[in-house]
């Protein structure tokens, strides 16, 4: 997909979501603005910019977007795992999960993971007992 067309589509999508959303609220009069007017103005401007982007994308030659799903998926999964495990087990196990899952994005090495886990657990304890951050360790 052409980069500029993608950008234009994103802009218009956000503008439509917020623009339609703001219609649920009171617009008010000019000397007594309601909560709807300002987001409506901004959404309109954003939609116009989106149209300009799409127009540019149709006329000019623009590089296509290249997504690599693998790395962003790995990182997202590792973060969700960290949050879930911290909540239901504890953060020490969560650190192991975070490091192990995220290492799938690069070459996998048990010794490196072990060293990282030890280091990060030390950091976590330092945060808890030296800085007073209330971590679920």
């Amino acid at each position: 997909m052409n980069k500029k067309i993608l950008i234009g589509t994103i802009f218009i999508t956000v503008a439509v979501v917020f623009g339609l959303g703001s219609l649920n609220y009171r617009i008010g009069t000019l000397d007594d603005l309601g909560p709807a007017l300002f987001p409506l103005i901004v959404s309109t401007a954003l939609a116009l910019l989106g149209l300009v982007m799409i127009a540019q994308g149709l006329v000019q030659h623009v590089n296509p977007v290249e997504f690599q799903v693998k790395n962003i998926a790995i990182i997202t999964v590792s973060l969700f795992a960290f949050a879930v495990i911290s909540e239901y087990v504890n953060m020490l196990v969560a650190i192991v999960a975070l490091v192990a899952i995220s290492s799938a994005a690069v070459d996998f090495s048990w010794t490196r993971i072990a060293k990282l886990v030890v280091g990060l657990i030390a950091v976590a304890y330092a945060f808890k007992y030296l800085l007073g951050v209330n971590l679920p360790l």
Partner: protein
Amino acid sequence: MDVIAHMSSGFDTAFTLQNLFYCALGCVIGTVIGLLPGLGPIATISVLLPLTYSLPATGAMIMFAGIYYGAQYGDSVSAITMKIPHVSSVIACIDGYQMHLKGKTGLALFTAGISSFIGGTVAAIVVAAFAPALGNMAFLFGPAEYCMLMLMGFVCVSLITTGDLVGGLGMVFIGVLFGSIGVDVNSGMMRFTMGLPFLADGIGMISLAIGCFGLAEIVSNLDKGNALTPFSGKIKLMPTWAEFKRIIPSALRGSIVGSILGLLPGGGPTMAQYGAYAVDKKFSRYRSEIGTGSIEGVAGQAAADEAAARTSFIPLMSLGIPENAVMALMLGALMIKGIVPGPQLIDKHPDLFWGLIASMWIGNVFLVILNVPMVRFWLSVFRIPYNVLFPCILFFCCLGTFSTNNNLQDIYTTATFGIMGYVFLKAGLESAPLMLGFILGPMLEENFRRQLSLSRGDFSPFWTRPISCAMLIVIAAFVAYSIYTGLKDAREHKRQA
């Protein structure tokens, strides 16, 4: 001679053991993140922002400021030795890297260090002299002027950081819309919360910043998969007297250019470097050598860089308007402490303001000590491979998100913004304008509504009040300029096709 009395009290504040420690810590963290890929000052400050709850306000600001200008220096080291800038040192890659190739690495690093020191010193004087004056000017500002100032900042940031007004402004507007999620201050109405209770307070600034800047950056580095080649060569630091004499005029020119450009909305280090480089190319005695690895090409931009990083605090401190994303986070830090930046800040919190300025100069001394004799040590930081680094950064992103509200669910929000930031990055959109729009959006709306209710629904104050009108003209000029260059590009495109 008020300034001198104020400065000496500022030094009293900055010279307490505690504040010296925060300043040194900020400089060290800043230098490290400037050197390493994957964490810029924006992401680092947002990770550390929750610490402000437990630190004194002055200490926190001193540390964040140290991170900001320390990162500028660390970044120039990385630019000179590896031609990899990741904060803003695009210009240092030109002459700095050429000097490195010629075997003058040590000289280039020394020049950057000393010039940064000169730039920082000049800027500290400028801040001390002008911020209170600008604070007085702020009393002339009504809601109309504040609106225009913010719009001017939006246009400048969009043009400068992205070079593309349409894309940049679009990101600003997305940020403004995100900022309007939550309770509307004027009517108490819930907006865009979709009935979700956790959105009532709005989107978390820290989640947004860590997602867009931290996570997106990590993933894009992983995508590139390039390994760094650490520098390992001889470094001869000390310049000869003839070389030293060439540093001074160029650094002074850069300091002045940087100080001025740092003041403008949307300004800051990036624009300052280009400005200083252009000025050196025109006025330096050695202008013919610039671009081929000359001392001037490094000195001017390094000085401008540091000067602008410091003077960009002036609009924040005196008007309460942050001019770039880092300053927007500083505003967030102040607000956590219940301090409202604006014309009264200097009078109400003199220890904070003058202490911060004094600490900027002390930070300069720290950076010179840290960097000039110890540069070899810092270069060894490059030897940390990215596959060790990035899980640590991920962990810090989680910690930063969690400790804002002691809430693990915030990590889901951060991860979601990470995906969003990644899509933006791949589409070629910068997230910095989004952050600025997000922070300034509520302020813009408030001032807009206040102005309209003051003038009873009449829009004319926006162009009849002189200061507001002047800013409107500047905005119009920027927009006209970008339409003009856009059309010119399109025509050339057609001719080539």
